[in-house]
C-alpha cells in the first residue's frame, strides 16, 4: 500500500519532494482526489496529499485578487466570494459527481492544474486566464514562485500558464493567486427549441457575434435535453439551444430583447430567469445530463466552434454515442461505450479534420492505459513538451506518465 505524504507547511512540501527526488520515488499528487480518475493510470509508490495546505491567505475584493493555499476547497472559496458578490469568472465546473464523488469536493489547486472552465469560457477565458501567481515545488525539490499578486503583470515567463493544465506533472503548488470578478447581478437564458445540430451552431454563432455580450451558448440534442432538471428544457420534446445573458438588471432586459429579435427567425423562443437559468447552466457546466450510465466513457473535445456539429456527426456515423455542445459548439462532451478503444480512433480521426484535441476524460483504468488520454503529440511538439518536463521534473517523480508516456 502506497505511503501518503501529507505536508502541512511549505517547507514540509519541499522536503517531501526533495526526498522523493533523491530516492527517485514516484509521487501521485492529489488535492482531495476528486479528479483522480483523469489522465493515464499512474504507477506511484507514494501519494503526495496537498489537502493539508489549505486556507485563504488573503482576499481583497476591491483589488479583484484572491490568494489561497492550493488545497483550499472550492466550497470555501466560492462561499467567501459569494458573500462579497464576486465569482471566479471562468465558472469552474464541479466534476466530482462525474467521478462518483459528491458536490463541492474539488480544490482550487486541482481546478487550476486541470485548467477547467465552464460555459463562460466563451466570454472570459479558462482557469489559465485567471491564474495570476503561484508558489510551489518543482520535481527537482526546489521551491520557486512565478507570476505575481496583481491583475496585470508581464515580468518574466508566464510559468503560471504552463502549470495550468499540467495535471501536477511539473510542480506541486502550495499557494495560488487568482483574479476574481464581480458576480453578475442578473442572468437570463433564451431557449430555442427544435433546431438540428447544424442549425443550432448557426444560431449560437449569430448570438455570439451579436453585440449583446452573450456569456454562454450551448446546444442539447433531444436525448440530452430530456434529462434536464429544468422543466422548460426537459419537456420541450426535442433539442434545445440555450443562450445566456448576464449583467445588471436594466441591461439584461434590454439585451435579451435584442437577442430575441436576432434569434426569432430560428424557431420558437422561451426565456429562463434567475433560478432556472442558473440550474440549467450548472448542469451543462458539470456535464450532469450526459448518460447517467456510469459505465460509459466520456470524451471532451475542443474544436473550432463552427466544426463541432460536423465532427460529432462524423463520429455518430460510426459509433453509438451521445453528446452535447457548449462554448458555442467549440466544446463537445461525448459519451461512448467502453468497448474496444472507447471510440478513440473514430473521435481522433474526426477531430483531426478540423484541428483541436480530444481527451478521454472518464474511462476505466484499463482503457486509459490502452489508448492515449490526451491528444497524442508527435515530432517537434512532443519533443519540446518532454524537454519542458525535463526542466521541472527531470527524474519523472511528479505524476509520471499522467499526461503522456515518459512525461
Amino acid at each position, binding site marked *: 500500500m502506497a505511503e501518503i505524504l501529507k505536508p502541512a507547511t511549505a517547507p514540509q512540501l519541499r522536503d517531501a519532494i526533495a526526498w522523493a527526488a533523491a530516492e527517485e520515488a514516484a509521487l501521485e499528487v492529489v488535492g482531495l482526489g476528486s479528479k483522480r480518475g483523469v489522465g493515464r493510470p499512474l504507477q506511484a509508490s507514494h501519494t503526495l496529499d496537498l489537502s493539508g495546505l489549505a486556507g485563504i491567505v488573503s482576499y481583497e475584493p476591491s483589488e479583484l485578487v484572491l490568494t489561497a493555499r492550493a488545497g483550499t476547497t472550492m466550497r470555501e472559496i466560492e462561499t467567501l466570494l459569494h458573500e462579497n458578490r464576486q465569482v471566479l469568472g471562468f465558472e469552474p465546473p464541479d466534476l466530482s459527481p462525474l467521478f462518483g464523488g459528491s458536490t463541492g469536493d474539488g480544490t482550487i489547486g486541482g481546478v487550476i492544474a486541470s485548467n477547467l472552465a465552464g460555459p463562460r469560457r466563451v466570454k472570459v477565458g479558462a482557469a489559465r486566464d485567471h491564474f495570476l501567481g503561484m508558489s510551489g515545488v518543482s520535481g527537482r525539490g526546489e521551491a520557486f514562485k512565478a507570476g505575481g499578486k496583481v491583475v496585470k503583470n508581464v515580468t*518574466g515567463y508566464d510559468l503560471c500558464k504552463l502549470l495550468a493544465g499540467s495535471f501536477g506533472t511539473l510542480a506541486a503548488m502550495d499557494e495560488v493567486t487568482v483574479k476574481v470578478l464581480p458576480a453578475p*447581478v442578473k442572468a437570463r437564458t433564451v431557449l430555442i427549441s427544435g433546431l438540428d445540430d447544424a442549425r443550432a451552431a448557426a444560431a449560437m454563432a449569430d448570438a455570439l457575434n451579436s453585440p449583446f455580450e452573450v456569456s454562454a451558448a450551448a446546444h442539447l440534442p433531444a436525448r440530452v435535453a430530456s434529462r434536464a432538471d429544468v422543466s422548460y428544457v426537459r419537456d420541450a420534446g426535442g433539442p434545445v439551444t440555450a443562450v445566456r445573458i448576464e449583467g445588471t438588471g436594466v441591461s439584461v432586459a434590454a439585451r435579451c430583447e435584442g437577442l430575441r429579435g436576432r434569434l426569432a427567425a430560428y424557431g420558437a423562443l422561451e426565456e429562463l430567469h434567475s433560478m432556472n437559468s442558473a440550474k440549467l447552466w450548472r448542469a451543462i457546466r458539470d456535464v450532469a445530463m450526459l448518460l447517467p450510465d456510469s459505465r460509459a466513457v466520456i470524451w471532451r473535445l475542443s474544436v473550432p*466552434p463552427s466544426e463541432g456539429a460536423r465532427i460529432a456527426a462524423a463520429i455518430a456515423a460510426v459509433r453509438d454515442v451521445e453528446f452535447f455542445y457548449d462554448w458555442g459548439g467549440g466544446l463537445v462532451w461525448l459519451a461512448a461505450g467502453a468497448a474496444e478503444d472507447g471510440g478513440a480512433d473514430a473521435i481522433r480521426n474526426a477531430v483531426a479534420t478540423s484541428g483541436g484535441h480530444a481527451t478521454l476524460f472518464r474511462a476505466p483504468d484499463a482503457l486509459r492505459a490502452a489508448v492515449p488520454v490526451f491528444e497524442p503529440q508527435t515530432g517537434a511538439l512532443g519533443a519540446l513538451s518532454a524537454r519542458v518536463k525535463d526542466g521541472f521534473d527531470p527524474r519523472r517523480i511528479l505524476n509520471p506518465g499522467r499526461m503522456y508516456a515518459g512525461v
Partner: protein
Amino acid sequence: MRMPAPDQAVLARRAEIVAALRAIVPGEGVIDAEEELRAYECDGLNIYRQLPMVVCLPSTTAQVSDVLRYCHDQGIKVVPRGAGTGLSGGALPLGDGVLLGMGKFNRVLELDFANRCAVVQPGVTNLGISNAVAHEGFYYAPDPSSQIACTIGGNVAENSGGVHCLKYGLTTNNVLGVELVLMDGEVVRLGGKHFDAGGYDLLGVVTGSEGLLCVVTEVTVRILPKPETARAVLLGFPTVASGGSGVAAIIAAGIIPGGMEMMDRPAIHAAEAFVQAGYPLDVESLLIVELDGPAAEVDELIAAVEAIAREQGAVYARVSNSEEERARFWAGRKAAFPAVGRISPDYMCMDGTIPRKELAHVLDRIAALGDQHGLRVANVFHAGDGNLHPLILFDANKPGEVEAAERLGADILRLCVEVGGVLTGEHGVGVEKRDLMGTMFSEADLSQQQRLKCAFDPQGLLNPGKLFPVLHRCAELGRMHVHRGQLPFPDLPRF
C-alpha cells in the same frame, strides 16, 4: 546597463555570414551597409543603441526556419524584431548578432467570423487587425497606445496590454494559436481556432517570452463584436488619495469599466496644454472612466460611477454626450507621452503594477524619490488594473541626467515590488528591467524560468542579454544536487 561582449570570432566571419544569409533570403532581404543598419539600432527605448552585425528580412516561414537553423549550427546569436516600438529594449540589436526583422510578414491570411478569429502574419499591425474585421462589426481588443505601428508578432512577444485590458485581457487572453520556429529551425504549431491548446500550455509561455524562446510566423487571434456604444466620464479629485479611493469604490461596486485611467497634476497640465482636451486644471487627480456595451447598461453604469465618485469626494464630473466629446476626453490621455515630451527634452516611461490600495502612498514616495534624484515625474496610470506609468523627465544633454533617470527608475520599480506589485505590467523586462529581476524573483525562481528557456533554446542564441540578469548554461541548470538519504524531514507527516 551592460550587454554581453561581442564574439570576435563571429565578427571576423561577417562576410561569410552575410553571404550565407543572402543564399537563404535573396534580393534586398539582407542588409549589411552601415547607413542602412542605422535604422535598426534601437527600438522604442532609444537611450540604448547598438548597430546589428547584419539585418535579415525573411518573407516565408521556410526562410525563417533556414536562417535560424543556419545560425543555430554556426553558433550565431539572433534578435527578432517586429516594428521596433517596444519600450523595454527587447529588440535592441547585438553587435555580433543577426537582427531578424519580421516586417515582410504583413498579410492577413484569413478572417473567420463563424469562429470569431483572424489568422494573420506577425508583421500585421495591431490596428490593422481591427481594421480588417471592422466591416463585419468586429475588432481586436488589446490596444497598446502604439497600435498604429506595433505588430501583432511584437504584441505576442511582449504580451502587450492597453487601456482596455482590465475588461478584455492582455494579448495572452486573446491569442488562440501560433505557428513558430524554434532556434534549431523546427516549425511547431500551437493551438488553432479552438479554445485551449492541448497538452502543456506552451502558447501561454511563448506569449510574453520577449523573443527568447522562438520566432512566431503566424498568429490566430480572437476577435470580438464591437460594443454597441461607449461613453466616458471625466472625474476630478482634490487629492490623489481620493482619486484612488474612487477607483476602488467603483470596482467594489461590481463595475468593470472598459477603461479607467488616472493622471496626476503634472500629467493633466501637460496634456491640457498640448491638446486642449478640456481637463480641469485645479484638481490633483483626474480619472477617465469609460463604460462600453449595450446603451441601456452604459447609461445605467455611467450614472452609478458618477454617484460613487461624488461620494468619494470628486469635485468635478463631466459625461461625454457625443462620440466627438468622448474622443476629446481620450485625446489628452493618449497624447500624455508626447505632451510630456513638450515640457521636457527627454522622458523615460516606467511600467510597474501595484495593488491599487497603495496608489496614494506610492505616488507620494515617487515624488520624494524624484526630489532626491533632482528630477520631476509626471504620472499616468491604468488605474483599473493598477499599472502605473511614471514618466521621468530629464535632459540627456545634461551630464549625469541619463544615469540619474535610470537610478530613479530603478528606485521606483523597487518601490512597486516592495508594496506587493511587479516590475512590469505591459512593457516587458527587456534590457531595461533585466538587472532588477532579482528584486522580485529569487535565484531559484529565475533558474526555473531559465530551464524553460533551455527547453526551447539550449544554446542560448535567441535574444541573449535580455530578460535575465545572468544567463546560466543549460548544462549547469539541468544538474540536480541531491544528497541521498541526508535530507532532513523530521516533521513530515506520513500516513
